[in-house]
């Protein structure tokens, strides 16, 4: 059954919300000459219709709750329902960001306690909690670096080195902050080329941005040596923490010389993706960078009272802050969820998380490397994700075909064509919340699809066949973008 758009079934006279009559006394307004007169065009549905519309829509989605979601680098793990429950406690969900500080001590306590854990797990010095998502966190880290350089009078350092396998956000962030981005090459085994990096380092380098574990699913063995070399020339080390889930509880980035790292709370600490956000990207900072972190900032005083540092007190307590990145405190609703997740696992459980994530990925790698090319397979174990290429597919068959065929097998495809360093890359990340039985079932499906790609089964080219939609015309969408609904009757009348 096709689900129509709300504009096709709703009417501007229908509402699913009632108001008490007493609420609207008929007296004069104070809206000046700005009273809205023109219609808005917002359709309404009664509650039964609305519940049905959105319930039906939801069923056209794939989701973690329905099956394994092997998107490499995206870390689709189980979202515990306890976290949803605690985030909805009125004491968290129903408090205002500008409420008097004495009335929100518990909320500040959550921020403080989460900060304590993030610092402890990463071995860093401080943490900026307010960034709204991973990319926002990257920006925060880079801004800290820029502020630190300027404080040192080295604003002339304009180069940020980024490995070619980096997430696209890394160069985008550096460029946004006014830096010049230069690539660092990779070795044949998929890691940063330390020698090449060292050769490039100099007084113009502000920072390197490295993802570790990297986007090929490998740990950067030379991380400490890289950090030392960068520090030696006066630069800073930014670590993209997107893959922190592979090492949480087992490795502290602070021990490897990292100066700043954002943590995607949804990846490592299981806040829900929600079909594309909201994210949350706190940034842990080294002692060198912490003074520059953004407002607002929280600190626990010796009497146990938690005080919020905002503009009015920053001069005293946090004078070098580069300022505000967002209106309020950050993603409080994600903090409560992440804290509940962290407390549930504890230090021992988080270590197990990393171990099981890595174990599941290696099991995937070794269960498939006879039918799929694993370009870095010979280099040794992977971390939390397994990387394959399209090497060996029949002429004209692509990673896209394999991905779409997996849909027909009942799965969401893996990440495709990323990282760019591998041709037709397929990046598979099972996460630690999949059972062995679930992995075996997926491995079976992917083996079968891979075999069809190798033998050139034409039906792959038109997959998916059993999804709510067949392949969609993305070119058409981009060429003549239709971003809002317009009434076809009106459109026709206008012609």
């Amino acid at each position: 059954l096709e689900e129509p758009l709300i504009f096709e079934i709703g009417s501007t006279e229908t509402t699913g919300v009632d108001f008490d009559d007493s609420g609207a006394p008929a007296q004069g307004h104070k809206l000046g000459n700005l009273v809205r007169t023109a219609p808005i065009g917002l359709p309404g549905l009664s509650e039964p219709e609305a519940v049905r519309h959105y319930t039906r829509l939801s069923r056209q989605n794939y989701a973690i709750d329905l099956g394994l979601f092997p998107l490499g680098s995206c870390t689709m793990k189980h979202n515990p329902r306890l976290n949803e429950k605690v985030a909805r406690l009125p004491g968290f969900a129903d408090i205002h960001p500008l409420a008097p500080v004495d009335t929100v001590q518990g909320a500040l306590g959550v921020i403080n306690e989460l900060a304590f854990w993030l610092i402890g797990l990463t071995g860093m010095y401080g943490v900026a909690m307010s960034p709204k998502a991973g990319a926002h966190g990257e920006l925060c880290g880079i801004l800290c670096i820029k502020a630190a350089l300027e404080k040192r009078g080295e604003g002339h350092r304009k180069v940020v080195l980024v490995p070619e396998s980096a997430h696209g956000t890394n160069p985008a962030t550096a460029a946004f902050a006014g830096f010049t981005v230069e690539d660092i090459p990779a070795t044949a085994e998929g890691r940063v080329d330390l020698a090449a990096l060292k050769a490039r380092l100099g007084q113009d380098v502000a920072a390197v941005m490295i993802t570790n574990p990297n986007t090929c699913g490998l740990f950067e063995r030379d991380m400490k040596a890289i950090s030392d070399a960068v520090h030696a020339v006066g630069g800073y080390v930014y670590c993209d923490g997107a893959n922190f889930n592979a090492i949480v509880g087992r490795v502290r980035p602070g021990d490897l010389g990292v100066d700043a790292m954002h943590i995607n709370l949804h990846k490592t600490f299981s806040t829900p993706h929600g079909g594309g956000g909201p994210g949350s990207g706190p940034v842990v900072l080294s002692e060198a960078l912490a003074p520059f972190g953004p407002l607002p900032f929280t600190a626990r005083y010796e009497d146990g009272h938690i005080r919020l540092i905002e503009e009015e007190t920053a001069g005293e307590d946090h004078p070098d802050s580069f300022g505000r990145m967002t209106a309020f405190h950050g993603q409080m609703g994600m903090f409560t969820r992440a804290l509940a997740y962290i407390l549930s696992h504890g230090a021992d459980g988080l270590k197990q998380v990393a171990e099981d994530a890595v174990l599941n990925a290696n099991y995937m790698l070794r269960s498939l490397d006879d039918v799929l090319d694993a370009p870095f397979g010979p280099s040794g174990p992977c971390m939390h994700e397994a990387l394959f290429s399209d090497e060996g597919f029949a002429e004209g068959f692509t990673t896209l075909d394999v991905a779409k065929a997996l849909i027909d097998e009942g799965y969401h495809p893996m990440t495709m064509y990323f990282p760019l360093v591998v041709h037709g890359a397929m990046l598979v990340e099972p996460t630690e919340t999949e059972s062995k039985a679930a992995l075996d079932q997926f491995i079976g499906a992917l083996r079968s699809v891979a075999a069809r790609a190798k033998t050139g089964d034409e039906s792959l080219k038109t997959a998916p066949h059993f999804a709510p939609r067949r392949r969609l015309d993305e070119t058409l969408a981009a060429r003549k973008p239709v971003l809002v609904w317009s009434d076809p009757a009106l459109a026709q009348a206008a012609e």
Partner: protein
Amino acid sequence: MRYLPLTPDDRRAMLATIGAASIDDLFVDVPEHARLSGPIDGLPNHASELAVERHMAALARQNVAAGDVPFFLGAGAYRHHVPASVDHLIQRGEFLTAYTPYQPEIAQGTLQMLFEFQTQVARLLGTDVANASMYDGSTACWEAIVMARRITRRGKAILSSGLHPHYVSVARTMATFTGDAIEATAPCLDAGPDTASLIDRIDDDTSCVVVQYPDILGRIGDLSDLAAACHAKKALLIAVVTEPVALGALKSPGEMDADIVVGEGQSIGVGLQFGGPYVGLFGCKQKYVRQMPGRLCGETVDADGKRGFVLTLSTREQHIRREKATSNICTNSGLCALAFSIHMTLLGEAGLRDLAAINHAGAVAAAERLARVPGVTLVNDAFFNEFTLELSKEARPVVRALADRGVLAGVSLGRLYPNEESLANGLVVAVTETTTAEDVETFATELEEVLA
């Protein structure tokens, strides 16, 4: 461990398949010095669901929930009643635990919702198009300034003194690094907004004028002249709406020819949540669509010719463009956009208009009552559901004293503008459909005692 399905037997069997003797063998690439042998010192071990829930509930109880007291805070975040069905629907696993819809064949639920959201937002803001949401209003505002720079190739943004100071702060912070010029001042306790002054200051270097509607003091002014003045100088008018419910009663900025309209959507569907996650609204004129930041959902057809939806124009985005992207953003606020869209669908136009009317009527009644308290003067000529009072005393201690008396009385301008002596006695008061007449009476009575 309740979230980890592998059993010890599974782990042994899988290590055997891999050909590794132990888990440690899989971490062989981690240098010796960086490997931790046991759980990290000083951090506690795992806890039962019961224990975690108790701990979190104890923290929650240390906060005063808005619903438990007379509550009048606004200034960029508003307390509205959200129908129970909204929260029910966004918790469906198929929405909650889905990823960004990069595989559209199995993500039509999210995509169709985003298409509906974009249309709702565009109609509400009065713009031709809208995107699939931003982090929040303040970051949307900054992205609009950057977008205006891209379009006009000019580097100076003029910010109204009525723009939320946190929004100004975000713009200033970011501009420090990007080299833009930001002109901004603190507001005066005038009865109306600073439109005339803004018009005077537009020049040939101006990329945009940013004006909040209603503004931080709750004042509302016609944007038409301002838009015309901007356009005369080939600058853009960016309007910022922090209370979208207002647009159920007021002309939209788009109607008054604003080029970009951004907003904080939190009022509809999302709730207070101590400041986040919220949902940034972003709409603009059709001609600027390819310069918009953020995700966009577009209509297309599938191989069978059926209507379907996809993320589109992603060539603007970082995962394709890398350092040439329009923004470094790679998430939207999907689930909050869903909550917004469901709540807006439940309201419909009729419900939104009723909601706005009730908010306004309540605010008018409250303003009149509070203005009768000795030592209180109403600043605004016109307002929607929020207005500013000038007190006979400094407002910050008054707010604290009222909190001790169980009334969350509004936002003092002293908190928002700590360095502006002239604003110290200002108090911004918001009234919504959740405010009762008894709440207002309690507030007035207690305020009178505190000011006495």
